[in-house]
């Protein structure tokens, strides 16, 4: 896969009046590929929201550089162009819904980007479809009358209507129940498949992204400790507890299978795991 977004030695400090600036991010480097689901993981206060906003071009690094494709994002024109390619879903985005109807709320972004008439309508309908919201049913309603999960997806539709090539989501699963999380995940998968977009999910809860993400950038105290594959996390080469996180139970299970030397072709398939466990028990029971 081709490199889509690259951060090189990026640092950022929030200005604090009368004090030395507190570095929220120090020397972070990572590369996200086209069509990849990439996770930025860290405990509360690790700097992951800062990193998300740098990835979305909202915060401009104090040092280091961002490359989009092969081009360095330098200067105001380049930054403006970069921001159009990247969409950011803030934490608790439902707090930012404001229009008097769901359809108008979703249309806000693309309208600002100059879309009009049929083109605008198509963008809104397409985005609502991707997140599984029926405009016939909900389009004319106030966004404030929606359930928590529907609000979150309406906010996501507003971002998707801009057709970003990179989608950054800051703690998108907080406060959603199982069904809400599953619906949001399937919206993300549809968008990635349809547009080949890269998706960056920021979270402190690895279990929420476990089936989706392929690589995990681990952050602690504003420093990037490394980018890990799922297999690295399963084999236990990182002390997640020291980073304020926990391997999800599916990962614990995979780790246990590894330890017991039980091979499973697809560790995301419960039936395959069960089959392997059953065979192992039969084999060892015969001794």
């Amino acid at each position, binding site marked *: 896969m081709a490199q889509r977004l690259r951060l090189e030695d990026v640092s950022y400090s929030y200005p604090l009046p009368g004090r030395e600036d507190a570095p929220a991010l120090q020397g972070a480097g990572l590369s996200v590929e086209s069509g990849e689901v990439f996770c930025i993981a860290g*405990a509360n*206060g690790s700097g992951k929201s800062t990193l998300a906003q740098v990835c979305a071009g909202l915060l401009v690094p104090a040092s280091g550089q961002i490359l989009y494709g092969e081009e360095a994002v330098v200067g105001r024109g380049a930054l403006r162009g970069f921001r159009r390619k990247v969409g950011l879903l803030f934490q608790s985005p439902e707090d930012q819904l404001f229009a008097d109807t769901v359809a108008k709320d979703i249309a806000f972004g693309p309208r600002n980007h100059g879309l009009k008439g049929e083109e605008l309508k198509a963008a809104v309908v397409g985005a609502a479809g991707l997140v599984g919201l029926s405009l016939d049913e909900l389009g004319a309603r106030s966004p404030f009358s929606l359930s928590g999960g529907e609000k979150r997806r309406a906010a996501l539709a507003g971002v998707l209507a801009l057709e970003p090539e990179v989608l950054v989501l800051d703690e998108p699963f*907080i406060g959603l129940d*199982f069904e*809400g999380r599953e619906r949001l995940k399937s919206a993300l998968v549809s968008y990635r498949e349809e547009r080949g977009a890269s998706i960056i999910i920021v979270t402190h809860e690895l279990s929420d992204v476990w089936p989706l993400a392929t690589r995990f950038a681990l952050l602690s105290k504003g420093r990037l400790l490394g980018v890990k594959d799922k297999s690295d996390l399963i084999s236990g080469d990182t002390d997640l507890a020291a980073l304020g996180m926990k391997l999800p*139970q599916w990962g614990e299970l995979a780790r246990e299978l590894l330890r*017991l030397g039980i091979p499973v072709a697809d560790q995301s398939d*419960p039936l395959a795991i069960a089959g392997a466990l059953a065979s192992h*028990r039969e084999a060892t029971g015969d001794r």
Partner: protein
Amino acid sequence: MRGNEGRLRIQVEGLSFTYPGASGEALRGVDLEFEQGRFYALLGRNGSGKSTLARCMNALLTPTGGRVLSCGIDTAEGSTRRDIHKLLAMVFQDPDTQMVATTVEEEVAFGPENLGLEPPEIRRRVDDALRLVGIAHLAGRQPLRLSQGQKQLVAIAGALGMNPAFLLSDESTSMLDYSARHRVLELFRDLRSMGMGVIHVTHFLEEAAEADAVVVLDEGRVVASGPPAKTLGDPERVRSLGLEPLAATVVAGELGRLGHPVPGGALDVKELVTWLNA
């Protein structure tokens, strides 16, 4: 250790609740009993009525049908609301919305001060609560400068300063990272061992698996209650209640289908390994 007889209870009897102007009932005929010295997890999809139930128990909401006796006091009697708030302290999801004072110590003293206690008693309660929660070292700090997890511990200490019989946690762990959540859960278990009743509303089944008893609500009704293994052990049932079954539970379910049942099911990987080696 007091016997069961001396334990205070929350008795929920045929409880219904309809929000003003709402078309449907948020709670429909709920019957439950909670007692001190036990740790309960309250689960259910969004909108199932969990928070409404918690709010009915500590008299923030008055039943529109049935009744709630919290430690023997009928929550419908407006004049006793203060007594109930003393006995059932509540902690909410977002600690930022719960901080009112400029130091941690003052924050924890806020509740006891409102009870009109004498200064030495307030001092004693604040010290005890801070020590119990393990944040005595933060006493002089500004609450809003603390981490999310620390803030939530301050909120819990504030609740404990009321010296309650029950602690009601309305998703108090949902915004916390794992370390902070782990610390809060540990604290809940300690409080239970000390004889307090803890009722924890959560989305995390791994947290619920550690409770003494689980109550699941759906569409305002109690649809499951009992020990975790019984209420959360069947993956299909768990999914039908809008909850995500645990990995070990899902695999144990598949093993059953393959003709290798795991007796009693499994809620964690350890239980699967035990079965494997049995």
